[in-house]
């Protein structure tokens, strides 16, 4: 969800207007993903590094997110979307917002349609550290640790590996996003800014992904010569 600030600057609006405009995109993309048959959708809403932004902008974001969550809760429930919040552990997080996150997750926990993971106050490295702590706390021997077991100790261990990451506004960085799960992800970097990103853009990204040749570190099926 990049480009809110630039979107607003281009229109000579305050940065906060960009965040507000992002709300429409979020809802549009959730609908588009559901309609396209996507089963796991994750949105990177706020990183652990975003706390470094000016205090007023952070405050505004918190209030905005709270309003958005409450406004769309019935819709998300009705659409059968299971919502959950990855991260959201910082003490700076307003208590009311944390309560709303909990409530939305509780409310939609039984839904079986798409799973929407909102990475809020998320950092991929922190998740990995959490998993390591959990392994140690459970007294697991060093030799027993495998990739599978390690993944089971990450937050939300049922999350599958990420297939496709879409990063808007032309930025081409990982920015500490779900580091463990993106190991074999395909990346798409549309130039459009997040507030302008709409369902057709999303479908274009899906289309691009479909044409990619995913090899997971192996070799393409048809090669010239002997692969050995």
């Amino acid at each position, binding site marked *: 969800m990049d480009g809110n600030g630039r979107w607003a600057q281009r229109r000579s609006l305050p940065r906060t207007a960009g965040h507000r405009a992002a709300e429409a995109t979020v809802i549009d993309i959730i609908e588009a993903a559901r309609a396209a048959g996507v089963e796991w959708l994750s949105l990177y809403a706020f990183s652990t590094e975003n706390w470094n932004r000016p205090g007023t902008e952070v405050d505004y974001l*918190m209030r905005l997110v709270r309003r958005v969550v*409450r406004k769309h*809760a019935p819709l998300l429930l009705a659409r059968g979307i299971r919502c959950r919040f990855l991260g959201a552990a910082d003490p700076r997080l*307003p208590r*009311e917002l*944390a309560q*709303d996150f909990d409530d939305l997750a509780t*409310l939609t926990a*039984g839904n079986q349609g798409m799973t929407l993971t909102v990475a809020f106050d998320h950092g991929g490295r922190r998740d990995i550290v959490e998993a390591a702590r959990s392994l140690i706390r459970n007294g697991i021997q060093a030799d027993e640790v495998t990739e599978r077991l390690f993944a089971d100790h990450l937050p939300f261990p049922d999350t599958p590996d990420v297939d496709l990451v879409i990063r808007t506004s032309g930025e081409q960085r990982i920015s500490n996003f779900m580091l463990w799960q993106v190991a074999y992800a395909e990346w798409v970097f549309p130039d459009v800014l997040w507030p302008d990103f709409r369902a057709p853009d999303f479908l274009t990204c899906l289309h691009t992904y479909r044409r990619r040749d995913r090899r997971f570190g192996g070799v393409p099926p048809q090669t010239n010569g002997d692969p050995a």
Partner: protein
Amino acid sequence: MTTGTTGTADETPLFASEPQFRAFFDDPRWALAIIRATVLEAAHPQVGAALADNSTFVAHPWRRLRNTFLSMRRMFDADPAVREREAARLNRLHARMSGSDTRGRSYDAMDRATRAWVVATLYESAVTMCRLSGQPLDQGTMERMYAEYRDFLAALDGDAGELPEDLNDFWRYFDRVVEDELENTEAARIILYRLFDHLPAPALLGGAPTLWAAGRAVVGPLLGAITVASLPEPYRRKAGLPEMPGAPTLMQGAYLAAGLTRFLPEDWIDAESIIETLSLSPDSDDPRARTATALRARMKRASALLRLLTPLSGDTDPDPVPPTSEAAEGRRSAEEFFRQVLDQTGDGHLDWPDLAAMARELATRLDLDEPEETRLYDAFAAWWRELQAALDTDGDGRVSADEYAAAVPSLAGPALIRVAEVLFDVTDKDGSGTVDADEHRALFRTAFHRDLTITDGTYDRSAFVGDFLSFMSGRRRNTGYDPLLADA
């Protein structure tokens, strides 16, 4: 008299024929009548003082209700040995309750006249409940029932001499006590005005505090108004209770509506299963707990939706959550522990009745006889002396929440360890040196939990003592002791 209510029990089993009381047992009207009877009980200065000092009904009303119910069931068990044993247990329990009220008048839960009054309020409330719901009892039934109640008193006291033999004299006796002896006691005021407004959620609904509070805000004042309107007029005048327009109609409507449930199929309303279900705790391995857990999940969802739909109040100022390292480790704050566990009587102070209530709860769970019961009480009494010596810094004879919070670390003294050891001894009924699955179930009403340090399916002394100490002095949450001592 905490358990005086217990008396409610139908003496019926004491009788050969189908007891009158039995018929009321699952009657929803009885719920209203029992509240009314309890207020009349509490308005008696002796009972009121005993209740205010000893009863856990403010802080742990649901546990108290369940205990009362089980005791009632035993009092009209078909087996006379069970009835005698329960009567003896009630007498021992009441013998431990005596003291003096705020005006220095002494009370004693074994006082015969007082106990007769408790039985009288139950009888009178049963009769009144029938009158108020428009189905008055005929003279013959009233007399039979009166005889049953007198027999009940006799089972407790040896004879029923304190209650008039003849029903006509009973009404004169009842009116005289209402006129002459009842007072506007603190206990009666608490029941009428505080209990229902602050009633904590039962274990079953513990997960839905919003829903519970919303329902309570409506039902609490209604129950208060209904009860006030059903009290005898002379008492309402004397205690300065409000006469609200419409309250008598409301009260009669409530009794009438409750009475209409007699047209429901039999077995639909079963007091026992209702009470048992309400006290189910989520960790229990009771098969019904699964259903309860499913129900609780739905209620949690409903209250989450309710909260999300509530319009935002303009001020959404960020209010950072204080770092709670204690919560993360499954510990309570000192203040929380004091309120949930130590202050059993809910009066804001820790004193002997609080610890006696813990001993009483443990003895009831384990169904102890003498001399084990006395051993347990003695251990708690020694712990109380230790606490008092260590914590009562202002010397007023009791420990306040602040005094406790200031001195928390020094809490695990030898007397507390002694309590843990005695508790282990009395729990380990077969003296095998370990608590086996059945003994564990008797105390905690649930099978071994996997986080217990169990080896070979048993629970040995050091692990038992360690868990008890970490609950009591480390304030750690514990799946066994939480439902036992902390739940409402």
